[in-house]
C-alpha cells in the first residue's frame, strides 16, 4: 500500500530539523510544543463550534424543523453568535458557593478533554504524541472529567446540582468499566495499545470487519457506554433537564457555562474518534479485497477526511440516540451496566480471545 501521498511524517521531521538547526534544542522543543498547543486549541474551538451547530441541525431535521437559519448561510454562524453572547454574559456570583472549586470545575472538565485529544491520530504522522499505551492514556484522562462534574455539583451550593453530580459520579464510575473492557476486546485482536499501530493493523480491513461478531458487539457496547460516559441522552441524568433543571451546571453562566457546553461536545468528539480509530480503521481508507481500482480511488481521499468522516458518522449515531430515546432512570442506568453490559462484555472478551487464538478472524 502506498500512503506516502498523505504522510505527514516528512513534514514533521522537516520542521523539527529546521527548528533544531536554528536554535538550541530546548527552545526548539518549546516552539514545537507551542505550535502543537495552538494548533490543537484552534482545532478544539473549531470542532466544538461546528459540533454545536451540527447537533442543532441534526436534531432539527429529526424533529421536522429547519434549525438555525438566521445567522449566515443556513445559520452556519449561529454558534459563533452564541459564543459571543456567552462571552458577554454576566458571570453570576453565587452566595455561599465554594468559590475556588466553583471556578476550578469548568477548567478541570475542559483540560481533561483537552488532554485526551493529544493522543488521537488524525492522519499518518499527524498526532501530538504517540504513546505506547495510547488507549490506556485516553481512558485514564477522559475519566478525569467526572472530577470536574462532581466539583461543579458540590461547590454550586444548589440541591439540583448536587443530585446531578452524584448521579454522574455513579454513572461514570460504572460505565468507565464497559468502555475499558470493550476496548480490551479490540486490544486482544490488535495486539497493541499504541494508536498508530492499531491504525496500521487495520490497513487490510477495519477491526469491526476483521473481528466480525465479537468486534461488532464490542462496538455496540462501546457506543452505548461512551454515550453514557459523555453524559449525553438517553444517559444525560446528570443534566436531566426535566428533573433537575440543568443538573450540575445549573448555577453556571456566561463563559463558564460555555466551557461545560464545549467540553460536552468535545468529549463526544473524543469518544467518537476513539471509536473511529479503534473500530473503524482511523484514517485508513475503505478497501475492498480484490477491487484494486476501487481501492486506488479510495487511497486518493486524504486520510484526514476519512478520519473526520468516520468520526462524524459515530457522532451522528450518538445524536440519533439522543434525539430518539427517553432518558433512563438512575437505577435502570446501573442495571443496564451491571446486569447487561458488563456480563456480555466479559463473555465477549472470552469469545474474542478464543477467536484470535483459533485464527478465526480475517
Amino acid at each position: 500500500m502506498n500512503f506516502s501521498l498523505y504522510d505527514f511524517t516528512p513534514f514533521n521531521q522537516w520542521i523539527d530539523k529546521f527548528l533544531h538547526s536554528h536554535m538550541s534544542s530546548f527552545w526548539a522543543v518549546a516552539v514545537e510544543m507551542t505550535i502543537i498547543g495552538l494548533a490543537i486549541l484552534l482545532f478544539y474551538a473549531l470542532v466544538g463550534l461546528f459540533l454545536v451547530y451540527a447537533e442543532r441541525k441534526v436534531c432539527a431535521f429529526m424533529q421536522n424543523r429547519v434549525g438555525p437559519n438566521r445567522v449566515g448561510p443556513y445559520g452556519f454562524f449561529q454558534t459563533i453568535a452564541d459564543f459571543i453572547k456567552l462571552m458577554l454574559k454576566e458571570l453570576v456570583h453565587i452566595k455561599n458557593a465554594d468559590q475556588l472549586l466553583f471556578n476550578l470545575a469548568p477548567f478541570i472538565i475542559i483540560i481533561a478533554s483537552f488532554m485526551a485529544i493529544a493522543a488521537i491520530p488524525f492522519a499518518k504522522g499527524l498526532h501530538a504524541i504517540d504513546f505506547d499505551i495510547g488507549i490506556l492514556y485516553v481512558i485514564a484522562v477522559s475519566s478525569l472529567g467526572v472530577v470536574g462534574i462532581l466539583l461543579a455539583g458540590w461547590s454550586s451550593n444548589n440541591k439540583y446540582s448536587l443530585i446531578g453530580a452524584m448521579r454522574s459520579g455513579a454513572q461514570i464510575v460504572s460505565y468507565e468499566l464497559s468502555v475499558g473492557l470493550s476496548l480490551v476486546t479490540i486490544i486482544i485482536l490488535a495486539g497493541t495499545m499504541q494508536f498508530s499501530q492499531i491504525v496500521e493493523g487495520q490497513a487490510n480491513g477495519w477491526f469491526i470487519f476483521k473481528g466480525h461478531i465479537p468486534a461488532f458487539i464490542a462496538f455496540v457496547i462501546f457506543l452505548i457506554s461512551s454515550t453514557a460516559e459523555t453524559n449525553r441522552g438517553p444517559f444525560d441524568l446528570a443534566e436531566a433537564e426535566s428533573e433537575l433543571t440543568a443538573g450540575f451546571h445549573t448555577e453556571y453562566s456566561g463563559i463558564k457555562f460555555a466551557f461545560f457546553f464545549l467540553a460536552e461536545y468535545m468529549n463526544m468528539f473524543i469518544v467518537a474518534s476513539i471509536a473511529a480509530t479503534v473500530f473503524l480503521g482511523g484514517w485508513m481508507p475503505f478497501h475492498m479485497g480484490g477491487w484494486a481500482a476501487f481501492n486506488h480511488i479510495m487511497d486518493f481521499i486524504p486520510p484526514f477526511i476519512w478520519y473526520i468522516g468516520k468520526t462524524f458518522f459515530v457522532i451522528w449515531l450518538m445524536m440519533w440516540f439522543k434525539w430518539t430515546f427517553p432518558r433512563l432512570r438512575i437505577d435502570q442506568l446501573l442495571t443496564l451496566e451491571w446486569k447487561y453490559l458488563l456480563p456480555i462484555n466479559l463473555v465477549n472478551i472470552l469469545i474474542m480471545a478464543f477467536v484470535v487464538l483459533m485464527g478465526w478472524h480475517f
Partner: protein
Amino acid sequence: MNSFFKYFSEIFHGVKSLLTGMKVTGRYFFSPGEIVTQQYPENRKTLKMYDRFKGEVIMPHNERNEHRCTGCGICETSCPNGSIEILQAKIDMPDGKKKRIIDKHIYHLSMCTFCGLCIKSCPSDALAWGQEFEHAVFDRAKLTKILNKPGSSIIKDIVE
C-alpha cells in the same frame, strides 16, 4: 434455563423497540420535505389569515368615510373586560332637536380577550374582526385605538 432465555429475549425485544424508534427519527432526518416550520417574517407576503381570524376589533368604514355605529353603547356593556369605551356627543339636528351621536369609540386592545361579544351584540353590525395580527408596539398607549376614523359620520339609513 428459562431465565436464561428470558434474559436474551429481553435484550432482543429491547433492542428491537429502540430500533423501531430510531427508524421514525431516521426517516424524518432523511425526508426534509416533511419539515413543517413556517419561515415567518419571510412569508409575510404569502401569509394569509383565515377570513374569520380574530385579530382585533375594527369598525369598517365605506369609501365615503361612513360607519354604522350609532353609539348606543351595547358593546360597552357586553364587554366583560371594559375594553370598549364610548364617548358620545350631542349635535343639533336640522329640525332643531338634539341628537346623540358617537364621538369616540375607544378600544383598548391590551384589555381585549377576543371573546367576540361586542361584535355579536352590536345591533347595527358596526363592528367586525380585523385580520391584523402583528400587534407588538413599543408604547402601551398605542394599544388604545379609536375605531371611528376622524371626520367620519354614520351611514344615513341606520336608525336607532
